[in-house]
């Protein structure tokens, strides 16, 4: 239910923002060359990201996150769970057939607080008033007939509406369901906000970050968790590249290597590294060796295929030209094939880095003492959803950062890419 409302709200914000920004910028023309193009639909180069849309998109995510978690950083909220004092009436019937009405007073308090107990006057008649304490988001069983006078008193109605086992009746601030044994299960209104354990508010995620950054997680500082994950990725990737790239070159340059390794590479390429985790654990154990072997395998095939593609992408006229200029085979490899394959290798390295980063987190989920993946899984076992969310955000930021660094390195080392 909440999910559906969230989705509808999101779509409404998307459309609303589009219309509003469109209205606000109407009549304002782009002054670049694209503005002169009459054909833009179907011309991919004429499509530029609308920066306003990007900003609003991020803002909307934070707004919705805050609004649905009751964050103090966000001015508007969806209705939260009911807290405070409320009551509902019930009608009891005794063995003699007489009916009497009484009230159940409820005090609903935020989880974790210790408010004073609520008192109830007994009231008049054989049906006596009751009182109950309920934490927000929880429900409580109330045996309304427990203190009523006389034998065989049973509850027949709530808020004037007849009730029987399995029937639910709504009152002002929640609903009451009768259990098969005749108790009343009282659930105060939950509202639309998420419970902290489902989705922590932005400030509790920030608080978790600050807490873990200063105090560490399970006696290990945050930077050490991150460092271990990164170190595994870098070492695994480096070994994978150190073996895979020469292997790819050999496959691109020699019949025997091509024939020998083709079936292996083509078979291993579609096997997701995650599927290898059990085998790698059995063979190499759950500690560093196993993880680095796994990442090595994740990077190896990608890099081998990239290097092979790099060799086959060499324009034969360049090779011919180099031979005609007197280059030897070793010189052709060093001065023509390797530089010419760099763009492909960089593309492969970016893919491999992404796969390695994903694989390390998954591997740490299985077994580790340090690492972001381990932090997430350990936090989830203690139901610290805020730490889980913080870990996910850190993983995203680091993965994104790695890709940006790779792209920068590519621009610096392969400036001719796509320009020949």
């Amino acid at each position, binding site marked *: 239910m909440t999910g559906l409302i969230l989705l509808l709200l999101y779509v409404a914000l998307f459309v609303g923002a589009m219309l509003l920004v469109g209205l606000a910028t109407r009549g304002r023309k782009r002054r670049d060359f694209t503005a002169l193009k009459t054909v833009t639909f179907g011309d991919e180069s004429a499509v530029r990201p609308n920066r306003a849309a990007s900003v609003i998109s991020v803002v909307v995510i934070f707004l919705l996150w805050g609004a649905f978690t009751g964050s103090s950083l966000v001015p508007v909220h969806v209705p939260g769970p009911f807290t405070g004092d409320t009551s509902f009436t019930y009608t009891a019937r005794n063995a003699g057939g007489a009916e009497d009405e009484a009230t159940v007073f409820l005090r609903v308090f935020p989880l974790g607080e210790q408010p004073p107990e609520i008192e109830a006057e007994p009231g008049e008649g054989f049906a006596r008033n009751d009182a109950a304490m309920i934490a927000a988001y929880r429900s409580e069983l109330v045996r309304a007939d427990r203190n009523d006078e006389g034998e065989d008193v049973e509850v027949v109605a709530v808020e004037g509406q007849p009730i029987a086992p399995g029937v639910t009746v709504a009152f002002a601030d929640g609903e009451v369901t009768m259990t098969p044994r005749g108790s009343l299960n009282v659930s105060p209104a939950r509202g639309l906000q998420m419970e902290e354990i489902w989705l922590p508010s932005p400030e509790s995620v920030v608080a978790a970050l600050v807490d873990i950054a200063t105090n560490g997680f399970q006696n290990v500082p945050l930077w050490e968790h991150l460092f271990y994950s990164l170190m595994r990725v870098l070492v695994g990737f480096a070994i994978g590249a150190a073996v895979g790239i020469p292997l790819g070159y050999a496959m691109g340059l020699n019949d025997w290597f091509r024939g020998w390794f083709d079936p292996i590479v083509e078979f291993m390429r579609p096997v997701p590294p995650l599927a290898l985790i059990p085998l790698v654990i059995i063979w190499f154990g759950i500690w560093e060796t196993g993880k680095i072997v796994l990442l090595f395998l994740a990077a190896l095939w990608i890099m081998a295929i990239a290097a092979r593609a790099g060799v086959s992408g060499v324009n034969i006229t360049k090779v*011919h*030209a180099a031979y*005609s*200029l*007197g280059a030897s085979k070793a*010189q052709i490899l060093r001065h023509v094939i390797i*530089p010419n394959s760099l763009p492909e290798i960089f593309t492969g390295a970016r893919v491999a880095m992404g796969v390695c980063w994903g694989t390390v987190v998954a591997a740490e989920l299985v077994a580790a003492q340090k690492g972001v993946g381990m932090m997430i899984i350990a936090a989830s076992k203690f139901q610290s959803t805020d730490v889980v969310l913080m870990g996910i955000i850190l993983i995203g930021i680091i993965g994104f950062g790695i890709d940006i660094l790779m792209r920068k390195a590519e621009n610096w080392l392969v400036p001719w890419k796509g320009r*020949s």
Partner: protein
Amino acid sequence: MTGLTIDDVSMRFDLPSGSFVQALKNVSLDLRAGELMSVLGPSGCGKTTLLNIVAGFLAPTGGEVVLNGHRVTGPDAERGMVFQQGALFEWMSVRENVEFGPRMKGTPVAERRATADRLLQITGLGDFKDKAIYELSGGMQQRVALARCLANDPDVILMDEPLGALDALTREKMQGLVLKLWKETGKTIILITHSVEEALLLGERLLVMAPRPGRIHREYRLPFAEMGVNQDLREVKKHPDFGKRREEILSMIWEMEEEIMGRTESA
């Protein structure tokens, strides 16, 4: 003996279907050192195959190529190539491209730098030494290719449609440059082209080849290259003989093309 001899060269490609293509049949040719020869012919006449055999990239199925008394068995720095495009090394600057040949031979830095500077000056690229290849226009890239080939000081220069990808104006300028370099360096040059005018201008000798099987159809000895060394190429083109030759060769190639069309239609 000096010079290039193409002795009864044949090239046959066997197809997987069992049939074969006779790309070249019994081609024989003698080129003295310092001669400039252009090769012309309809597509499929084996011009490029012949050039690749002389360059040593292909081994002929019959006959042999002999340069300065020894047989050609593979590519070598004595036979330089200039390709239509895409043969420059984008990861090197203009100067590094030109220095490539001497560098592979282990020529000292100062010496090869001087060679490169001199050739870049001659080809009009003095101000572009440190540019990247992709920053140059197509015409400039071909100048780099010429300079790179000359830096290696080959005996024979083989050009495979070197000006084919250039626009008409740049092309005319480059034709003048090729003539100038030929005269100044005295290299033996074989130049393949699709343009009849270019073949007339850039050939002391002009070879017209015919297809199926690829063979030499006719050979001309022409005065235009020698004339073009000292005067504007547009003046040379105004020469009455030039127009006459052009028409003659054009109609010869047209006939060949039509014959091919007729043969494919009847087949």
